[in-house]
């Protein structure tokens, strides 16, 4: 993304001090710990971190999709000024998909295997726009054309489509109601590299033409830096660094961010051994972020922490 969107208007999403806990039998685990961020209109905000750092949990919390034993235990989520956590079930239902939509990790399992993809798209229109079935069907066909799938595929069942096509269908569904915010939770991890590229290009194109904001989640740093305007790095439920994507890539300040960026080999140039965190290095009690450069927030690292990378 080359141009940064204007930031004068109010943010679409404002998350403040969000905490999510999993209540287990014997212990309680805080998967998201006092996390704050905002996403502006038309902005693509990336959330990076390793598997299990809490990024998916945070994304699900935004749409209040968490289920027992996970529960939001603190903080606020404001969507265009509305307090999402205060909505009742019916208000929440109308907010979902119309205002915030989501593309899930695995398109295979997020589509109902016993319904045609057409019926699953039609469901959206008949529920939210109270369209008649025949009209909804036409709209569904248009949607498929938008992601360049033959509208004849409406009658197909999910298992009859390729992985890439399924993910396109899911993306088409996500933009069906022209939502303000699109959450994408690792939308391409289940796909091979070529298809991944096509899908990402498609998402970028849709974002340019429709202008929605994106909360983009991945553990693939290069993909994220390519696509996002601003991004945050998450570790063990905490943010360790937030900055404009290119700035963060060029000058990573937190050792964990450096390790994450170094974990991906450069595509060209000589082979260099990958350098990661030293064996056994753990960050605990991560402090709140401090602005170390304009727009570049970093969690201070306690002095004396041994973090330099050992040879892999």
């Amino acid at each position, binding site marked *: 993304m080359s141009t940064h969107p204007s930031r004068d208007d109010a943010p679409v999403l404002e998350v403040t001090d969000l905490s999510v806990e999993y209540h287990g039998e014997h212990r309680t685990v805080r998967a998201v710990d006092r996390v704050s961020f905002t996403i502006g209109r038309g902005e693509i905000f990336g959330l990076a971190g390793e598997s299990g750092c809490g990024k998916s949990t945070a994304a*699900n919390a935004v*749409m209040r*999709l968490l*289920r027992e034993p996970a529960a939001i235990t603190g903080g606020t989520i404001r969507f265009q000024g509305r307090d999402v956590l205060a909505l009742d079930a019916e208000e*929440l*239902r*109308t*907010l*979902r*998909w*119309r205002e915030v*939509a*989501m593309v*899930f*990790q*695995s398109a295979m*399992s*997020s*589509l*109902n*295997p*016993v*319904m*045609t993809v057409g019926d699953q798209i039609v*469901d*959206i229109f008949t*529920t*939210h726009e109270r369209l008649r079935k025949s009209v909804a069907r036409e709209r569904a066909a248009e949607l498929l054309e938008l992601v360049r799938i033959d509208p004849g595929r409406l009658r197909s*069942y999910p*298992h*009859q489509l390729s992985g890439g096509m399924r993910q396109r269908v*899911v993306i088409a*569904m996500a933009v069906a109601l022209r939502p303000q915010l699109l959450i994408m939770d690792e939308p391409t991890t289940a796909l091979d590299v070529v298809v991944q590229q096509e899908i990402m290009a498609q998402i970028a194109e849709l974002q340019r033409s429709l202008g929605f904001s994106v909360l983009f989640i991945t553990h693939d740093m290069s993909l994220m830096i390519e696509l996002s305007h601003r991004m945050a790095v998450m570790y063990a439920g905490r943010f360790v660094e937030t900055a404009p994507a290119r700035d963060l890539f060029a000058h990573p300040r937190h050792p964990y961010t450096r390790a994450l960026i170094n974990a991906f080999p450069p595509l060209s140039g000589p082979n260099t051994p990958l350098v990661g965190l030293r064996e056994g290095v753990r960050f605990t009690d991560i402090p709140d972020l401090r602005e170390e450069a304009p727009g570049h927030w970093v969690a201070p690292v306690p002095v004396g922490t041994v973090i330099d990378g050992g040879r892999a």
Partner: protein
Amino acid sequence: MRFVVRRLGFYLVAFWVSVTLNFLLPRFMPGDPVSRMLSQSQGRMTPEQVDQMRVLFGLDQRPVWQQYLGYWHSVFTGDMGVSISRFPTPVTEVIASQIGWTVLLGGTALLIAVVIGNALGILAAWRRGGVLDSVLPPVLVFVGSFPYFWLAMGALYLFGVTLGWFPLRHAFTAGLTPSGSPVFLSDVAAHLVLPAATIVLVSIGGWMLGMRNTMIATNSEDYIVMAEAKGLRPARIMLRYAARNATLPAVTSFGMAIGFVVGGALLTEVVFAYPGVGYQLLGAVSALDYPLMQGIFLTITAAVLVANFLVDIVYVRLDPRVRVS
């Protein structure tokens, strides 16, 4: 289509196993129950009938493979010998005159138990921890722990003997001629209530819990989360997304359950003297009527296999993933 053909092959194998078992039992069992039975009833049989029985049970001196082929021949021509307990009616005739009542009893009970049990399971899973979910399962498990026939005895004693609300025995009042008239049909229905209710009561818990557990597993699928994220109405998610998928394993176990329900129906018939094959089976057992026992076994097995095949065809309609191959 390949799925259906494969299943058909499987049922043929199952049928072959049943027929072969039926063939082998009288020939290789220790002791000689068959000749005991024959000597007992020889006085009433014509010499031809005795010879026919000897052939049926392998007491003639032909080599086993010839006997086996001959046995298959009689299975296909519907020749299962003569019933001893209902001498001299042929076994096939005895069964034909009674299978209808068993189908009526078993079918009614199965249908009611499946519909109500699965509906309860869906609701219980949807409202986890609700009244339905916390009260009903233990109660139904407890009720389901009783033997079919004992519950039948209790129901017969309580509602039949003591309270006199329902008729005590048989499928219709003696003296009425079977017809399509409302009088006869309501009489049949009144006779059906107690036996069917006991079967429903015993089997409904299994359906409810099976459905509930499948629904709970289904509810954690990604497509349910996605459906919630889509802002669909709860009723639609529950029925079209969760229950619709949870039905698939239920359909599979439906086929399996037919056999169990048949067993339950047979025992219940005995208690209510309901004139189906189960009641006939009791008579066959006490009279050492081996031809009838074997005939009933084969008939019921064949019926269960056919029912399972029909269930498979329904399954193909329900699951698009096996429909196209």
